[in-house]
């Protein structure tokens, strides 16, 4: 059984903050298929399309028939431990600082033999199931878990090292006015967050959840306007050094494409909040967060963006809003690259229409605040980078993966008019 993780003591400001180190990043291009699957939390291996042989380690040609037609497919991850070791010394600083480190050889029931991390609850020669996750280098690693759940499993140091678990962490939610904020705060609090900061713009202007948020224990409402650089800088000056997870749920949304709107006013607001707001937050909070990724139990771990799934391919009914989200998605990719050397993870949670005023005319299914909250907490616990919340987002993503050009054709039909 894993030892339950204790809340960290107050930080001694005179002590040096531990510099972030990383596990090895170098991988072959074939291996990046495993990392892409890890970003979504899927266990996938290459399968030969000609002879069906399952391959590992990732390669460029089938080890059974030499075919070069290999495809990544979700694969059964159950197997048995053949051998194990505890690494007590390593030439790599990241592991040296975290030793002892338990690894093992697992024979999957479907064939391949895999060297992987072993969760502390795995028994000698026991049955296990592998999970595929990103480590702090941003690359896939496989971790064996016992097939039955044990108490405090999530607190295992080797598992926690690859997740963004909210437990004992301090979290900033950027927009109190978003109808999903109360649900997010509740879910994070239930997941063991130590403290939740909520940013509130234009405090003089009331909003439905204002009183509820003000009265929640463990929640601090603080002034923050993501369209105002000095407001963002001021809050970062106050709490930037103790923000372990930042959740940017600020969004400006209006319906309409280019021609439905007479001017660029809404588009400018959309860019101010959805694109430049993200940039301002990143410029103010990013540097401190990425310098604190090895800062003990409550080290900085994740940056979360809530994006429209139509960032992938435009939905003309919300054409300009989709465009601002496409810009934000692209910026998040840049941010992911810029944070990568520190191990700070960028998680994008893509949603379809959300249950709120601006999506009122759209038919169901829509994303309820508690659904978004549940998805987000699960994504943090799993340490994911890409999540699709709700049926519409999953549907659009599946079509996007299948063929982005077909998705564009089917999203932009004019309809059978006169």
């Amino acid at each position, binding site marked *: 059984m894993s030892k339950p993780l204790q809340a960290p003591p107050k930080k001694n400001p005179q002590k040096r903050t531990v510099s972030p180190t990383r*596990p*090895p990043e*170098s*991988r*072959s291009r*074939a*291996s990046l298929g495993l990392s892409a699957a890890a970003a979504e939390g899927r266990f996938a291996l290459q399968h030969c399309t000609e002879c069906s042989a399952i391959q*590992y*380690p*990732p390669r460029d040609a089938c*080890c059974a028939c030499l075919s070069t037609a290999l495809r990544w497919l979700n694969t059964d991850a159950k197997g048995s431990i*053949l*051998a*194990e*070791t*505890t*690494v*007590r*010394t*390593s*030439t*790599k600083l*990241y*592991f040296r600082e975290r030793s002892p*480190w*338990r*690894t*093992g*050889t697992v*024979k999957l029931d479907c064939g391949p*033999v*895999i*060297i*992987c*991390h072993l969760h502390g609850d795995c028994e000698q*020669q026991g049955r296990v199931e592998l999970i595929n996750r990103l*480590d702090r*280098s941003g*690359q896939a*690693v496989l971790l064996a878990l016992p097939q039955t759940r044990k108490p405090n499993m999530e607190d295992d140091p080797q598992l926690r090292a690859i997740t963004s678990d909210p437990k004992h962490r301090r979290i900033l939610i950027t927009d109190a006015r978003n109808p999903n904020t109360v649900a997010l705060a509740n879910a994070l609090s239930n997941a063991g967050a130590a403290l939740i900061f909520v940013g509130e713009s234009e405090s003089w202007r009331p909003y439905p959840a204002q009183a509820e948020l003000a009265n929640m224990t463990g929640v601090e409402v603080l002034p923050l306007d993501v369209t105002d650089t000095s407001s963002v800088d001021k809050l970062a000056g106050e709490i930037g050094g103790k923000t372990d997870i930042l959740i940017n749920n600020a969004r400006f949304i209006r319906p309409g494409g280019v021609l439905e709107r007479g001017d660029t006013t809404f588009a400018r607001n959309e860019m101010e909040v959805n694109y430049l707001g993200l940039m301002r937050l990143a410029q103010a909070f990013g540097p401190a967060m990425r310098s604190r990724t090895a800062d003990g139990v409550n080290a900085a771990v994740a940056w979360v963006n809530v994006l429209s799934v139509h960032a992938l391919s435009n939905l003309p009914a919300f054409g300009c809003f989709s465009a601002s989200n496409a810009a934000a998605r692209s910026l998040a990719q840049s941010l992911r690259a810029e944070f990568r050397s520190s191990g700070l993870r960028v998680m994008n949670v893509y949603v379809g229409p959300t249950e709120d005023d601006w999506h009122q005319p759209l038919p169901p299914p829509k994303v309820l605040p508690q659904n978004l909250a549940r998805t987000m907490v699960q994504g943090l616990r799993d340490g994911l980078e890409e999540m699709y919340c709700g049926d519409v987002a999953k549907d659009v993503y599946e079509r996007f993966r299948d063929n982005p050009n077909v998705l564009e054709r089917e999203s932009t039909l004019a309809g059978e008019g006169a």
Partner: protein
Amino acid sequence: MASRQSYDNVVLTAPYSTPYQRYSINTAHWWIAKALRGSLQQAKLEPKELDGLTVSSFTLFPDSAVGLTQHLGLMPRWLDHIPMGGASGVVAMRRAARAVQCGDADIVACVAGDTNHIDSFRQMLSSFSRFAADASYPYGYGGPNANFALLTDRYMQEYGATREDFGRLCVAQRHNALNNPGAVMKKPLSLDDYLTARPISDPIALFDCVMPCAGSESFLVMREQTAKERGLAYATICGTIERHNAHSEDPIQLRGGWTVDIDELWQMASCQPSDIDLLQTYDDYPVISLMQIEDLGFCDKGAAAEFVRNHDLTIQGDFPHNTSGGQLSAGQAGAAGGFIGLVEAIRQVTNVAGPTQVKNAALAMISGFGMINYDRGVCSSAAIIRAGSL
């Protein structure tokens, strides 16, 4: 399958080992030049008389055997680069022997050498192989220690070998190394020292691991007639084998590629295990030596632990093994680790081993093992050599 040809009229001579150093400010080129010169001087040859060369090295980058020809001013008509780590000594020998036998070259030098700077071991690890970078280093970055710890763990479970069994082999090799002035390890090792050593990657502890160091090894291959004319003591080749990526269906490595070809090797050499005067195994970790003792036919599979309990593996013992101390006690000089056993065996059967000399050594077996590409050693090789008559 066609039967293998003998190595009649081809001999091994002029064995040379440059004394190893823990760290060196010199390059692989320097170490290789030292060993090559050592062999040539023994044979009273000028560099220009050499017309064949094989090179094995991990730290020669960006050069290969090609760059070395110009660097060292050689003009071979036959050249090979053999990047097979611990298997490269025997592989170089069998390649060179065929070249000489067929007249593609008259005198081939087989050389291996590597330097060891502070931090060069870590750097070499990071670029060792694609599968290792993709699928073994991200898991604790224990390097070969962690890989062999997994194999050792499984071997112990499967065959009931104990740490004491591995310890016996290590202690005997240290005893041998104390007779080898070129060895890096100079202090005696007791079984108790071995058992109480700092754990590295369970079940592997400090004295299961080789010490990375700088060093080089070399020998010459030529026609028997040439050796006689020059008055050189030599060894003849009774048989050799190599095999790569054998038993890939085994989920974890408990046997090596030797098992595929070993019967043919004994047949070629017209002898049997009890005829062998000394054995040089590739000993990057003791479990691999035990595996070789089994797979080469000195005992049944899984019985090597009992075998080392019942035999004295020192120079004076009933089963002399890794007489110069092997890599475990002399040090692992990169690719030269694939030559240490072979070069020592040539010295032994030509009776020039000096302080490590086994009495009346005439027939020696050498085996090589190399390249943990992902989860197991991929290359294996073995040879039997015999004292030649001058």
